[in-house]
């Protein structure tokens, strides 16, 4: 069962656009997979390694700006911009981790310092010429796959599907590898981890680099899909919270949590938005649902599947 799950998932993701081929459905699929990707990036640091960040938008924004600036200012093809963004996000992750963990920041202090970094990046992006300042950057429309601007949404769908599946593969690998076991040990008890020979500083820097790189890939995708970024979208608190939210709702520290959380939250978001014309009502309903989910399933929706398995056993 456990071995078939990833294959079934890949199959489902692959055939989805053939079953639901409306523009709305494809866009829905893209959103689910996009939030699953950036949620997974948060999950790897926050869920697997217990390094809770409130500022993952820093990596998202660096990814979005990195490929876009390379493209607009230096004429670099966004397909090459994507790996450059991943490298930039990884570097930023390692750097922020290096500074924060060297200073011994843990728990809520680490969360606050990441938030501060994201805000600092937002202000820098707001004031530099190369980032277009507060006006943001508009990518000229040149629809072609070679240009990472697909003529149809299906192209975007398969790119984000590949990235999201890759992020799940990374999570699956973490569950079975020494690196993942060490991250879990750090999350559960850092002193005990050190006593057992784990270089906790090094492992935490590594995981932040991995998480930052993954998140930056989502940033590049976002920029190419919407062809527009500005400091508030790229580095704003909203993105940080959304990543954290899909993971918490789905189940932090689990492989499929971010995907399940993203599916539910995107669904709820779309349904409540179309439910009523009244301004803000959809957000109230959205908020109430979050409260209910968190109240009944504090470990996330994944808990539902676990409970069923336990009952069967």
């Amino acid at each position: 069962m456990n071995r078939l799950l990833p294959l079934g998932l890949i199959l489902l993701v692959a055939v989805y656009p053939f079953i639901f081929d409306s523009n709305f459905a494809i866009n829905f699929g893209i959103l689910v997979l996009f939030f699953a990707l950036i949620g997974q990036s948060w999950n790897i640091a926050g869920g697997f390694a217990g390094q809770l960040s409130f500022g993952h938008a820093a990596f998202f924004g660096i990814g979005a700006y990195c490929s876009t600036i390379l493209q607009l200012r230096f004429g670099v093809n966004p397909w090459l911009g994507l790996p450059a963004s991943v490298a930039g996000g990884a570097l930023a992750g390692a750097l922020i981790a290096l500074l924060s963990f060297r200073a011994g920041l843990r728990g809520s202090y680490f969360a606050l310092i990441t938030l501060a970094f994201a805000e600092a990046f937002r202000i820098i992006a707001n004031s530099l010429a190369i980032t277009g300042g507060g006006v943001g950057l508009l990518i000229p429309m040149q629809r072609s796959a070679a240009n990472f601007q697909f003529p149809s949404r299906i192209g975007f769908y398969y790119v984000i599907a590949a990235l999201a599946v890759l992020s799940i593969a990374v999570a699956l690998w973490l569950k079975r590898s020494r690196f993942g076991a060490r991250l879990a040990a750090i999350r559960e008890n850092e002193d005990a981890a050190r006593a057992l020979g784990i270089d906790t500083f090094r492992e935490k820097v590594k995981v932040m680099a991995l998480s930052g790189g993954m998140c930056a890939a989502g940033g590049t995708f976002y920029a190419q899909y919407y062809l527009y970024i500005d400091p508030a979208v790229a580095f704003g608190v909203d993105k940080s919270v959304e990543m954290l939210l899909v993971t918490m709702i789905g189940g932090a520290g689990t492989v499929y949590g971010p995907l399940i959380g993203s599916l539910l939250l995107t669904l709820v978001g779309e349904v409540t938005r179309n439910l009523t014309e009244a301004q803000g009502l959809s957000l109230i309903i959205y908020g109430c649902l979050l409260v209910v989910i968190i109240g009944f399933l504090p470990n996330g929706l994944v808990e539902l599947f676990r409970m069923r398995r336990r009952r069967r056993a």
Partner: protein
Amino acid sequence: MLEVRGLTKIFGGLRAVDRASLEVAEGSIAALIGPNGAGKTTLFAAITGFDRPDEGSVRFCGADITGLPPHLICRQGMVRTFQVTQPFAQLTVRENIMVGAYLKTPERDAAAARAEAIARQLGMGELLDRTASGLTVAGRKRLELARALATQPRLLLLDEVMAGLNPSEIDALMPVIRGIRDAGVTVFLIEHVMQAVMSLAEHVYVLSYGRIIADGAPQQVAADPQVIEAYLGRGAAQRMAGAAHA
């Protein structure tokens, strides 16, 4: 194997460990005893790199390891357990022990096999799939021991593994510790349970107010007037001697 010279650890104005020197011979079981607050755990922490000593040196197997971080000391073959058990609470017993086993192998299967072997050696074979948070006190103590052993240490520092156990659990754990030594791992333990110290340790160090006040064979140390006074108060040794004569 372990040589501590003049080790001092100061917290504010308090000399928690004051010029402590001791030696642990390879293949032996040594014990560190002393009244509550004497500085035993601090001494362990300073030896294993958790607290940087202010003065003095620690040598392990001939190499100077003073002030090295804990993970490097562990990699050289010296590992400690914690008095207040520190399980990876959400992980299973197997996963807990595997974290230790991964020190010597990157292979998941090898680490799992080693974890299972150690769990069985410590009588935890039935508990492998249990979550650590659900273990009893005795189970957690054994888990500390198992995780530490999984790193394949040459020297094991045990901080009160017997504390909080009932007499039958203590009786069950003693042969386990002796078995670990017989398998070639040197053991240095902090212990309050005198029954365990007396029957396990070959050499005992007594710490009081941060200083080593006596050392020797267990019987010899137990009869030392300074040790009796450290535990029972000034004049206690004399009163006991008087009572024996009367």
